[in-house]
């Protein structure tokens, strides 16, 4: 049964590049908090004591302004970042779909990229061979699949990555923005796919700034602020709390009670 359990997770990033002063300036204005500034390095606390659970059928939206830790949290859920403190238990096959331009070999052809991505996601050669036709059809790329992916538009790359990531019938699908960057026709198809996926009793976590998108796909939401969970509950409450919080941000942020477990 697919589920994710996150308990008291802390994540912080060491920043090794120089120019700490200007960086400190940027980071305190927006985003995570700087935990310690020594003369050698800066540490950005991206997530602080984050705890929550996601179960089957949950379609969780992650809200928060730029740098609140949304992408970092997704990477923790994907098992890419190991937290510094706390515990993460992920049950089920995870398919992350983050920044499409990364993780794709631009010199390889579309078919090669389907294969590579499938293998990275834990598919076997046999599984890929049986599904490659279906994936190719979904992407609607036709003959382009024989060309290097560097010749593709952003939308075409998105379709390719999305096609593979949803074809592996993951238990847990992690999406970071991006899916809005394609044409309307694709959104329809993606919509159908996502719904089918969710019906197969999977778990989905979606990060986006688009409230309409989040409302359309999600039933639960989590609001992050400076790396801490400030709200978790139904999507509607979260969206209104978040939009209100935005207006009140100058007065000290969200005042809604924390209702995580």
């Amino acid at each position, binding site marked *: 049964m*697919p589920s994710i359990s996150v308990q008291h997770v802390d994540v912080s990033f060491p920043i090794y590049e120089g120019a700490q002063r200007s960086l400190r300036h940027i980071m305190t204005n927006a985003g995570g908090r700087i935990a310690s500034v020594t003369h050698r390095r800066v540490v950005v606390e991206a997530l602080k004591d984050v705890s929550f659970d996601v179960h089957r059928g949950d379609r969780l939206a992650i809200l928060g302004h730029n740098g609140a830790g949304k992408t970092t949290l997704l990477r923790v859920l994907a098992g890419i970042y190991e937290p510094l403190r706390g515990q993460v238990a*992920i049950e089920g096959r995870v398919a992350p779909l983050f*920044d499409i331009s990364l*993780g794709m070999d631009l010199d390889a052809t579309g078919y090669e990229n389907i294969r590579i991505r499938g*293998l990275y996601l834990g598919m076997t050669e046999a599984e890929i061979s049986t599904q490659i036709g279906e994936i190719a059809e979904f992407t609607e790329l036709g003959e382009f699949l024989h060309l290097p992916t560097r010749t593709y538009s952003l939308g075409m790359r998105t379709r390719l990555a999305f096609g593979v990531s949803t074809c592996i019938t993951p238990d847990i699908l992690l999406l970071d923005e991006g899916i809005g960057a394609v044409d309307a026709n694709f959104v329809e198809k993606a919509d159908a796919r996502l719904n089918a996926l969710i019906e197969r009793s999977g778990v989905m976590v979606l990060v986006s700034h688009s409230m309409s998108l989040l409302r359309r796909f999600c039933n639960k939401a989590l609001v992050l602020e400076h790396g801490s969970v400030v709200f978790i509950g139904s999507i509607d409450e979260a969206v209104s709390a978040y939009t209100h919080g935005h207006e009140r941000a100058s007065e000290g942020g969200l005042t809604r009670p924390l209702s995580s477990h």
Partner: protein
Amino acid sequence: MPTIVVHTARSEFRIRRAFRDIVSATLHPHLWLVLGWLEVKQKYRRSKIGPFWITLSLGIMVAALGVVYSRLLDAEPRDYIPSLAAGLIIWQLIAGLINDGCTAFLAFDGVIKQLPAPLGVHLLRAVWRNFIILGHNMIVYILVMLIYLKNPGLVFFLAPVGLALIALNGAACGMILGVLSARFRDIPPIVSNAVQLIFFITPVLWRPENLKSRVWVVDWNPLYYLLEIVRRPLVGESPPLSFWAIAIGFTIASLAVGFSLFARFRGRVAYWV
């Protein structure tokens, strides 16, 4: 097939997780086999002869250096050139493994931050890629042996054993240099300069016998022993037992250091790249 991934910050699980990482990468070879091939193919995409540029450039190097150095060292070309070809091929393998070890994780930063796959995949990919190059270079060795009508005999079959030891060192090298390079970006250029320098003090173009007296730089160079346990079988000589002992000892040590570093910092690599 539901998989359960548990990440805790507790250190006692580090060794177990690092071990599981390497095992699962090894048991799913398709990924790194494909990645290694693509990396080789990619470099020569749109070229007429493709990866055979590797073969051609080594062939030219062997011919040119063979003519000059056999005179310089006053050696019989029939003995010198096969030995030179074998030496250069193995040196390219060792140098490639060291340099690729540095970039094992760095070169795949995008993928590491995108898709959760064992990091061992990148170590094995780097080793495999260099063995593909070795395969292309072996054509030169075979041609040279045919030209001089040399038959290495049964000792030839010791060469794969030596190559296996080099492969293990390549993986260890990826664990050490790959992790360190992800954190300290000055390491790759330092290493590539060092490798160039070491080429000249390792007996590849010349033999230790060419030296007037024993030189500690040769005696204490572990790469010399790794090189010889493959080079000698390729030209029909059996390496002394002491060479095997040193090579095996060095491999165990490098694997121990490599695995400790990898286990300790594996979880940090995604943050560093």
